[in-house]
């Protein structure tokens, strides 16, 4: 029987089956008229295996037969098909990050003191994994708690050249309606989805102060719009 035909049918059968196929199952696919013998099937399998050599798939033999699978080397990009949609970071995480940025070097205990609640260890872990904060030393007190500071990646991510580009506490205090009016370099007027309602409310309340704080009233309006847009945006 035509060698190419056998190979084509076997490849198609393996790809259609969604499970490993034994040689005799593959033989059975061909009807009597163009019956393929087991050795023809084996030859076709060998040819397929060779054909896949430079490719992202491979033909392997497992307990119940032969199957075509993704080459492990190429699994990482392919796995991205199943990547999870990012969840939003919690308020606690953002507060922790902000405290590390403004009060570094700082220990977890000190963060807890300021925030008034204990810091979930996972938050620190997440921030460390994200490479936004790092352990810069240990405070020489009982327990030798780790001191946390921000990283260069932190600055890069937020578009800051140096920590000084962050608004000072005094500025922050003036900008009571930060949500609405902040126009920092690299700070797009984008609010997270959950924030949009409150942003709207804030805009209304603080209109008077907004102008005092040297950011235009129209900036407020813009931010409001921005918030509405953002709901669908980050996804």
């Amino acid at each position, binding site marked *: 029987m035509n060698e190419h035909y056998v190979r084509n049918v076997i490849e198609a059968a393996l790809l259609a089956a969604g499970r490993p196929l034994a040689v005799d199952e593959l033989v059975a696919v061909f009807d009597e008229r163009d019956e393929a013998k087991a050795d023809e099937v084996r030859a076709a399998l060998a040819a397929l295996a060779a054909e896949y050599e430079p490719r992202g798939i491979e033909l392997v033999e497992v307990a119940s037969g032969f199957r075509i699978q993704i080459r492990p080397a190429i699994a990482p990009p392919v796995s991205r098909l199943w990547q999870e949609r*990012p969840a939003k970071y919690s308020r606690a995480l953002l507060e922790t990050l902000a405290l590390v940025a403004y009060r570094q070097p700082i220990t977890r205990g000190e963060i807890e003191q300021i925030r008034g609640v204990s810091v979930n260890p996972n938050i620190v872990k997440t921030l460390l994994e994200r490479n936004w904060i790092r352990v810069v030393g240990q405070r020489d007190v009982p327990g030798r708690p780790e001191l946390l500071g921000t990283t260069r990646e932190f600055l890069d991510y937020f578009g800051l050249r140096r920590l000084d580009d962050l608004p000072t506490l005094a500025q922050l205090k003036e900008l009571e309606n930060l949500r609405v009016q902040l126009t920092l370099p690299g700070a797009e*007027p984008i609010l997270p989805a959950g924030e949009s309602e409150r942003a709207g409310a804030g805009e209304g309340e603080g209109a008077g102060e907004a102008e005092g704080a040297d950011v235009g009233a129209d900036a407020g309006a813009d931010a409001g719009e921005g918030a509405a847009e953002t709901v669908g945006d980050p996804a």
Partner: protein
Amino acid sequence: MKPELTPIPHGAAPAQAEMPFAVVEGQPVTIMPRDLYIPPQALEVFLEAFEGPLDMLLYLIRRQNLDILDIPIAEITRQYMRYIELMQVLQLELAGEYLLMAATLAEVKSRMLLPRPETPAAGGEDADPRAELVRRLQEYERFKRAAEGIDRLARLERDTWVASAELTDRKVVRIPPQVTLQEMLIAFQEVLARSDMFAHHHVQREALSVRQRMTDVLSSLTAESFMDFTRLFRPEEGRRGVTVTFIAVLELMREGLIEIAQAEPYAPLHVRLGSAARNLALAAEGGAANEEMTST
């Protein structure tokens, strides 16, 4: 176990007399010639194969290669009625629609008997009495054909299958969430609002560069070995940079985070991560260090 019934494509057979209208268990079946024996079961299957009165009418018309636009109503009605009675005799469940169609046919037929005006009013009431029936038949036939067309499409699980290969070690890839600077600052503002930090005047205009430098200095030091004090400074940063570093060092000493050692007066200063006790001892020499610094 049900015998398969395949209607013959319309207009395919050239000779009407031999045209079978159904194939039952592989055998062509022509009912109409009276002398042909048809097993009752097959007849039943045949009659049940109609998708309703329109389908049956269409069959009667097509079987005789009639133009759908010019149906001989009387004849078709007669044939239709015969099937209806057949169905009743066979006690097939007869949907009301079949009887409704019989009434419609009878009505059309009777209207055909009435004389028609010489010049019909355009689009008027007195159009061909068959018009509505013809329209319905055509409309139904279009969708009957469309259904056949859909059935002919190469579809999954019958004509084709999605090719798939196993991905054995799938890694779950998590994308970290996006954060804007503004979000972080909003969070910070709320912390500040909750705590009394705004009340503390000492944080009012604190230069963040000092904080950053404190972090930088700390991470460049180890507890084990001393580092040359002057290596903490980068002259290329200019006077301001050097000052920031120096304030950072003082702050770190105050907090007991580093310690500075000097072998003898005016000897080079060395720094390492601190223990609070030693740091206290050295704090007094801060002034000397200061002088040393400014002289460089």
